Each structure stands twice: as C-alpha cells, then as structure tokens.
C-alpha cells in the first residue's frame, strides 16, 4: 500500500517535471519546427510538425534577406569583444588578485559595482561620444561599447578564480627565474583556463543577444547585428511567419550549439554571482 502511494507520488512528480520541461522548451521546439515549414503550411495548421523539411528556407534567409551579413556582423562584434575582454580582464583580474597594492580593492569594487548600472545612464552619452569621434554606426564603436559593458562581470569571475590559485605556484615560478609577465602568461593564464573559457562563452552569448546598445548605436542595414536584423525582418515581413521563424532560428543556432557543448560551464557562469 505504502509502496503504491510512493509510486504514485513519484509518477506525479515526474509528470510535473515533464510538463515544466515542455513549458520551458516547447516554444523553442515550436519555433524550430516553424522555421522548417512554409508560411502557407503554417497558416493551415500552426502547431503541426514539419512533413517535409524545407531546409532551403535557411539558404533563402541567409542569402536573400541579408542574414549572412547580420550574422557576420554579430560574429565580428561578439568575437572581437570577447577576445579583447578576456585579455584585458584576465590581466586586470590577475593583478588585482595577486598584487596587494594600495587602492587594489578600491579599483576592484569601482569596476565591479558598475554591474548594476542601468544602461540608459550611459547609452545617450555613448551615442554622443561615438558620434563625436566618428564611431557612431560602426561595428568598431559597438565593439568598444560592448567591451565596457561586459568588463565588470569578466573581471569579477576572473579575479575570483585567480584568487583561488595557491600563492606557492607563483612563488615557485619566481624562484624558477620568471618575471611578472611571464608568470602571468605561463602559469596564471593556463591554470585559469577553465574560468577563461567560461567567461568567453558567457560574454559571447550575452553579446550575441545584446539589443539595446545595438539598436541605439547602429542605424544602417549593412551594419546590423543579428538581433537588429531579426527585429527588422519581423517589422518588414510581419505576415511571413515562416521566414521570420527561420531568421530567428539562424540567430539562436550558434547559442544552441555553444550550449550543447558547454551547458554546464554556461550554467555555472551565469549563476556564478547568484549562488555564492
């Protein structure tokens, strides 16, 4: 009897789990299926699965709706920012974790606290500044802004990791004859690789999805990043649901791929601040 009620509780729990999972990823699967169906197919039945997979739609969106352009713009902006961020952030994080100089904590908290700044407080001025220096509506300008935006979280994660590396390792390298920069390069950075990778993926995803700064700082079509491109396509081709879905899919596929390979790292990175 007890066994039976146990079993029923467990299956109830399992059903709840499945329901929640369906709720969480159902819309995504729906979007995925729409991206492979034509609009007329969708109009006849909105929630059916694809009978024939219209892969050509991806090619169509890619080639004829400028998605290749948006895609490469996003790749450029996100990759450049991520690389610059990780270099600058790792150097600063390493230094703040390892050198107890006067003002160390002040610098750390000054940079870290900007994590809570509302974007509006900077976005209007950044617009003005970029216009002034001819960087408005350029990918370089957007990249610079992204570097500034993601610096606090990058520094926070990397500094925390460098702090946990035992001091003896660095001392051993000093005794082995290495200077400050070489120790960073040959000891600190390789050991911090897990955190470096986490930060890189995290920044990549957040910047890949970024919308507010992009919508303010980019105006011309050939400079648009994917989120802007998708939004514009939605505005222009409102009724062509099938193609909108295909475009949206193109914009999330890289994230899904990254997530498939690094899910644990991404989850850890995103929740790093909250769990502690």
């Amino acid at each position: 009897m007890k066994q039976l009620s146990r079993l029923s509780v467990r299956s109830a729990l399992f059903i709840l789990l499945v329901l929640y999972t369906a709720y969480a990823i159902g819309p995504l699967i729906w979007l995925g299926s729409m991206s492979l169906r034509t609009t007329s197919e969708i109009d006849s039945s909105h929630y059916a699965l694809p009978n024939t997979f219209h892969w050509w739609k991806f090619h169509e969106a890619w080639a004829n709706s400028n998605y290749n352009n948006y895609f490469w713009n996003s790749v450029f902006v996100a990759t450049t920012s991520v690389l610059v961020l990780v270099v600058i952030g790792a150097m600063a994080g390493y230094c703040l974790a390892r050198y107890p100089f006067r003002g160390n904590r002040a610098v750390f908290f000054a940079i870290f606290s900007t994590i809570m700044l509302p974007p509006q407080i900077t976005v209007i001025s950044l617009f003005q500044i970029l216009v002034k220096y001819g960087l408005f509506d350029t990918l370089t300008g957007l990249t610079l802004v992204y570097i500034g935006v993601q610096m606090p979280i990058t520094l926070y994660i990397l500094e925390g990791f460098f702090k946990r590396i035992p001091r003896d390792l660095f001392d051993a390298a000093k005794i082995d004859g290495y200077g400050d920069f070489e120790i960073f390069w040959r000891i600190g950075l390789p050991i911090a690789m897990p955190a470096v990778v986490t930060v890189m993926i995290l920044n990549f995803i957040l910047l890949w999805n970024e919308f507010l700064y992009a919508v303010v700082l980019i105006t011309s079509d050939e400079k648009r990043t994917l989120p802007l491109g998708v939004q514009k396509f939605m505005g222009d081709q409102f009724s062509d649901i099938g193609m909108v879905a295909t475009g949206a899919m193109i914009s999330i596929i890289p994230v899904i791929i990254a997530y498939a390979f690094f899910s644990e790292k991404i989850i850890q990175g995103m929740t790093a601040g909250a769990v502690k």
Partner: protein
Amino acid sequence: MSIWYRRESNGQWPIIALFVGPALLGYILLTIYPVLLTIYNSFFEIRPRNAAAFIGWKNYAALASDRTFWLAVRHTLIWALVAPVLEVVLGLLLAVTIYARAPLGRFFRVAWFSPVLISYVVVAIMWSWLYNYDWGLVNAGLRALNLEGLQRSWLGEPGTALWALIVVDVWKWTGFHLIVCLAAVHGLPQEVIESAEMDNCGWLGKIYFIVVPMLAPTLIGLLVLGFVGKMKVFDLVWIMTQGGPLWSTETVSTYVYKRAFDWNTFDLGYPCGIATVWFAAILLCVILFTTVFRQREKLEY
C-alpha cells in the same frame, strides 16, 4: 654601508599599471565618462546643431509633472516587484519538488535553463505569436477549454498588456532561479530535510518552515538581483509593444529611449535627466537592500 630597503609594493607599480591599466582606462572612458556626461547633460537642452543651453534644474522640474514618466515608473516598479517574486517562488517550488528524488538528469537542467540564453528578440517574437488573437496558443487553449469568453488580444488591450509581458519575463527567467535554488537546496544538510520528513509536517510546511529560512540568503540575493535587473527592462517591451497600447506598458527604459531617439523632440538633455533620476533610484535601492540585508557582493546583473 647604505642599503636601500625595498617596500612591499615599491618597484611593482609599472607592472601593476601595465596589468590593470587597460581595464581601468576602458572603465574610465566607457563607463565613468559617459555616466558623468549624462548627469552633466541633464542640466542642458541639447539640440542638434545648436550649442547646448544650460537650463539648470528645468529638466527635473519638467520630469516631476511628466505624467508619462510617472506612468513608466509605476509600470517598471510593478514589473520589478512582481516578476522576481513570481520567478523565485516558482523556481523554489520546482526546485524542492525536483529535489524530492524525482529522476533528474543533465537533460532537464539544460532544458530548463535554455530560455535564459535565448535573445529577447526571439523570445518577443515567439511570444507575440503565442498571444496572437486568432491562432496563438493562449487563445487556442481557452477555446479548447470552452472558455471563449476569456479570449482577448492579450498584448492589444491596456488592461492585460503589462501582465502579458510579465508572464513572458517569468517564462524566460524561472529556469535561472530554479537552477540556483536547486543548487542551494542540494547544499542543505540532508538530515534537516529528513528530520522534517519524520516530523510529518506537510510538504508546504516543510518548505515554509525549513527550506525558506535556511535558503534565506540565497533567496534574498535572487530577489534583489531580479529587482535590479527588472528596473532596467527594455528589450522585451520595445520589441513586443513599444510601450503601448496607450502607454500601458511604458517603462522607464523605453521612455528614455523614445525621448532620446524615437520621438523627434531632438533634445538629449531631458532623457539624460530621466536616466539620472532612475540611476539614482536604483543606486538608492541597492544601498538600501545591502544595508538591510547586509548582503555584500551579492548583487550581480
């Protein structure tokens, strides 16, 4: 014999400057300078091709009587207060349920967390379809339940639009809170939860009397995190409703954007004023929270 004694950090300054310099420079140029410039601009009327005209506190005075601004504040506060609570409560309930030894694998974790990673643009498009009057899943579901009377244009009516957006926000972020709560619940000592089982206090009682107090720091951290995050909400609103219909989903962020770049008012001073006020409000809230909960270092984006 004269010896020069090296101080601890003497001679390290060049290295320190080299390491921290780039980050600090970026921080000053891309964060501090724009923030100060925004605050400075808020005392000016700035129109293209005209010199900025100093107008003192006028922008702030105008703000006080700007009905749209106060509407935006109201909506943002509702959002920032309701959404985190819903997300955390839902996340916690699910976490405790799942913790009760239901089969659980990597797949589920990955699935629940995935909405967090989808860009707002895609989320917005997906959900405006789900809210579609004719074929959206929400109305289709109501029809299937024979509740045709409840059907409505969820994003099109001032009465429901804000709540419809909040639901989307909850959908996107519950997974995040769920994962964090799950980690925290797993961190609780096993005996505590088991002894509560012996005491036969009910399932909800267990959560309320045992789990919530023990997870209080995490939960408060999540709530504060959520609150600060929602105070900045922009993407979802801008893409789904642009603040409409009839200002019913206007938030501070969208209003700043509209005044700066969308309406052809051509004045950047006034939105700077709004941004400054809002920045001060968030700062105040954070200081308040941190002193009240003494939750140092727990506020991330």
